[in-house]
Each structure stands twice: as structure tokens, then as C-alpha cells.
């Protein structure tokens, strides 16, 4: 695909996404679309660390939850605008990511992934027992100020749709910029051959920490959006391993290390989830995990390049492995 055709396709997709809620008015469908956008945003955020740098984190809910809790607590206790809370959450999550990344990056491959599971489980346990943070019961956000300024919309879910879309576009833009920067090339080098990267002057710790800080900040912003949309957060919904796995699965399904892979992965996964809910009934977490597990195994074995692998392989011909052939 030429650059111009790519830009045109992108603008068309954006226009379609912007017009979608006007064409589909059913609230349940709009809600599904919001969930899809939010899942896509988290997958794109996860991809910076898991896809480009190849550091598979199964603990990203810790950063998502940090965003949700920081903005909610700041608005409940100090009356801070959730928009500012979103930035504060991103900063706190970045700092937290650097603190946990430092020791975890000493571990390689599966051990790193397991350590990140431990991180999210520990954070969940701590918050569960911490009364001032709402403990296991969780936090109900006050309906004090509705409208854009207060980041609360109770008449229609539509504004959340556009905010989720804007956040996804922002996250994609950050990802795009990173991929073209010195850091982006270094991350891909670290993923392929860490020793060769070091021999060329690349500090593994420094660039992995940059990646996790950025990835965590974006995931935290998704957490704030979730809190403002649901107006209720608890450790089980925001700080869980199953949410962490979902973030990674969205990227793995779509195609790790590609810009739009997680968006496609989120669309497919959301459809599968809704479908399995219809078939198996209820919203039991059990079926979700079974579906996630099955998909991970299938893709790891049969299609490591994800859905993007099929798309680029078929539509763009052999050169498609390198969508950005010229840096």
C-alpha cells in the first residue's frame, strides 16, 4: 500500500468510527463499541512494551488500576477534575512502572511475565485490605458534576464513545512516534538480539524502563476513562490478572509490534466475548478465561504474527512484512 493510500484508508476508518454511533443508536451496541475502543487502546499501550520491546507483561492491570484509583481518589478526596486526575494517574503509574520494572527486567522471558503477574496480584491484595482505598468493597464515584468538565455523562453513553475514540487515537499517535524514534529502533533491536544491541551501545535497562513507563502511563489513562464510565471501581475489576491477560491477548491476537494489530485484535476479541456470552450465558469470568486461554494457545502455535500477519501477507504482498520500509 502506498503512503497516500494508507493515509486515505486511515482517514476513512476514522470517519466511519466517528459516524458509527449516529448510524447505530441502540445503547447496548454503542456500549459494546465503547468496550471495543477501550480494549483497543489498552492493547496499543501494552504493545509498546510487549510488542516492540518484546517484554511480555501479564501485569498491566496494575497500571490500569493505578490510573483508575488515582484519578478517582483525587476527585473524591480533593475535588480534583478527573481530567487532571488522568494526568496524575499517568504520572503515578509511570513512576510505579519504573520501580517495579527495575527488578523485573533482571528476569528474562517467562520469568519476567511471571514476575509481572506477581506484581498485579500483590497490588490487588494490598488494595483489598486497605480501607481508605475502599478495600475489597471498592469505590463509588460521586455524580457531583455531570458534563464534559466533570467527565461524567449520565444521560447518554455517547460522550464516552468519543472520549474513548480520542484516547485510542492519542495512544496510536504516541505509538507511531515511538516506532519512528531512536527509542523505537532500540526497542526492536532489544527484542531481536539483546546482546547485539548492547554491543552497539544500547543500554537494555534504560530503554526497557522508557518503554514500560510510557506503556504504563497510557494504560493508566485507560483506567481513568474506565472509572469515569462505570463510576465504580474495585480491585477485582481493575487490578486483576484476567484484565492483564486480556490486554496482552488483544495485541497478540491482532499482531504484536504492529501499529494497528491491537485495534483489530480488540474488535475480534470483543465480538468473541459477546458471542460466548450469548452462547454460554451470564458474564462469568470463568468463560472469559477459558476463551482467552484457548485463543492464546491457538495463536501461539498456529499464527504468531496475529491477524495482521494474514492481512499484510495477503493484501500487501511479500513486502508487507515491512510496512514502514523507509525509516
Amino acid at each position, binding site marked *: 500500500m502506498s503512503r497516500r493510500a494508507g493515509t486515505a484508508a486511515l482517514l476513512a476508518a476514522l470517519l466511519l468510527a466517528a459516524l458509527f454511533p449516529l448510524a447505530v443508536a441502540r445503547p447496548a451496541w454503542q456500549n459494546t463499541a465503547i468496550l471495543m475502543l477501550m480494549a483497543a487502546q489498552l492493547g496499543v499501550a501494552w504493545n509498546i512494551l510487549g510488542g516492540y520491546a518484546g517484554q511480555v507483561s501479564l501485569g498491566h492491570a496494575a497500571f490500569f488500576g493505578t490510573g483508575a484509583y488515582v484519578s478517582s481518589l483525587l476527585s473524591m478526596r480533593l475535588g480534583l477534575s478527573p481530567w487532571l486526575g488522568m494526568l496524575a494517574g499517568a504520572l503515578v503509574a509511570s513512576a510505579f512502572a519504573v520501580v517495579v520494572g527495575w527488578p523485573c527486567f533482571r528476569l528474562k522471558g517467562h520469568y519476567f511475565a511471571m514476575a509481572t503477574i506477581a506484581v498485579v496480584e500483590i497490588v490487588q491484595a494490598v488494595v483489598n485490605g486497605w480501607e481508605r482505598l475502599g478495600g475489597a468493597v471498592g469505590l463509588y464515584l460521586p455524580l457531583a458534576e455531570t458534563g464534559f468538565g466533570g467527565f461524567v455523562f449520565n444521560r447518554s453513553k455517547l460522550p464516552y464513545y468519543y472520549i474513548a475514540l480520542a484516547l485510542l487515537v492519542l495512544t496510536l499517535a504516541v505509538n507511531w512516534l515511538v516506532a*519512528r*524514534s*531512536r527509542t523505537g*529502533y*532500540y526497542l*526492536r*533491536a532489544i*527484542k*531481536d*538480539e539483546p*546482546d*547485539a*544491541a*548492547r*554491543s*552497539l*551501545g*544500547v*543500554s*537494555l535497562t534504560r530503554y526497557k524502563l522508557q518503554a514500560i513507563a510510557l506503556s504504563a502511563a497510557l494504560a493508566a489513562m485507560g483506567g481513568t476513562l474506565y472509572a469515569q464510565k462505570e463510576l465504580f471501581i474495585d480491585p477485582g475489576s481493575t487490578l486483576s490478572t484476567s484484565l492483564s491477560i486480556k490486554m496482552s491477548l488483544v495485541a497478540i491476537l491482532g499482531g504484536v*509490534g504492529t501499529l494497528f494489530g491491537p485495534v483489530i485484535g480488540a474488535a475480534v476479541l470483543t465480538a468473541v466475548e459477546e458471542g460466548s456470552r450469548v452462547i454460554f450465558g451470564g458474564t462469568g469470568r470463568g468463560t472469559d478465561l477459558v476463551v482467552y486461554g484457548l485463543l492464546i494457545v491457538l495463536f501461539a502455535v498456529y499464527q504468531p504474527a496475529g491477524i495482521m500477519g494474514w492481512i499484510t501477507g495477503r493484501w500487501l504482498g511479500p513486502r508487507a*512484512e*515491512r510496512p514502514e*520500509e*523507509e*525509516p
Partner: protein
Amino acid sequence: MTPLLEVERLTKRFGGLTANEDVSFTVGEGEIAGLIGPNGAGKTTVFNSLAGFFAPSAGSIRFRGEEIAGLPPEAVAARGVARTFQIVRIFKGMTVLENVLVGALLRHRAVPDAVARAREALRFTGLERRAADPAGRLTVAEQKRLEVTRALATEPRLLLLDEVMAGLTAAEVQDAVEMVRRIRDRGIACVVVEHVMEGIMPIADRMLVLERGRLIADGPPRAIANDPAVIAAYLGEEYRAPGA
């Protein structure tokens, strides 16, 4: 004048195994030093210590007068030492140009500048027509050349080449030898670990011979080729330096 590289009594032990013992040598600016020895003699271990991948058990490594033993690889690279790997480690998920770009980004932080430098390096080693290809599609000879190009893109003062001629055809070896000569002509000193002595002997200013972790000879190629200890240890009766 202090030499570019001074290695003094370098020792590296792995548990009970001593891979390098009391290895001392120097390399001057713009010099080509050949490092030879039988398999398992400890040549790659010397490189790993020089490049910061191993912390030596004892001894010192001074580069441009500064002690670098024990520094991490990225710090050694920043000081101007570049290396290739005996078993190639190219970035398979990247194009040829992107591989070299990663090297060029060390001295040129802006991506467009680094791209220009990377292209220059690719022209120098004759890989520029492969620039847009995925690195994994290169032949073995080209992959080795790509590693050299990537290392050159970091603009080193000293280049450590680990068996870049092994497994190449005779014609490819001649190309590689020519390339090493041109690298030296740019003022970059090279330490060349090699099994293909036909290649390295004619261009080396000095030869270093390792046997079971110890340096058993250090001198001009012709003297080395006729040194009875070296012949016994490694070269075998059938080999003589060209013209000797």
C-alpha cells in the same frame, strides 16, 4: 605514546576452567592484529572480556589509557570499541538498513542523520543494494558483512572481528580481506580472530597465537608462521606463510 589497547595479564575463569590465563598484548592505532589458535583456545573469551560481556577474573584492559575491564558492553561501545559475533546476531525483524541504523544511532541521535550515516556505511561495505531487504533474507556471507557494517556505523576506533571469514567461499574470503584492509585504511584498528589464515596472514601487522588460554606467540606474521611452537600447537607442518 600509549597504544590504543593495552591488555595486561588478562585472566578469565569459568568455575574450574581457565579460558584465558595471563594474556598480555597491545594493539596500536590503525593496526591489524590477527588472533589465532585452535578451537577452544579462548579467542572468543578474549573478545567477550574486551567488549564488556565478561568481567575478567584478573588483569587489566586499557583503551586509550582508560581502564575498561568490567564496564558493561554499552559503555565499552560508547568509548569506541565495536565487535561482531562468531555466530551472527543480526536483527531478523528489521531491514538491512534498520540493522545498520541501530549502530549509527549511537553517535547520531536524530534518526534522519543516522539514516544518512547508515547508508554511507552500507555503501562502504557494498551492501547498499540490499538496504530495503529483510535482514533474514541475506546469505551467510552477507549477514556477516552486515554485522561488520553495523559495527562500523558506531564509528569505532577499534573493531573486533570474530571469524568473519569462516564458512565463506574463496572469493568471498578475498572480498572480506579487502574489506578489512579498507577499514584499517580508514584509521580503525582491527583485531581479527580467524581460522582462515590465508586470509589474515598477508594483511596482519601482528599475529597473536593462543593455545589453551595462554598466549604462546606474538610477532610479525612471517616469524609466527615459522615458529616451531606455533607450528606444533596449531598450524601444522603443511602450512607456511606465503613466500616463506
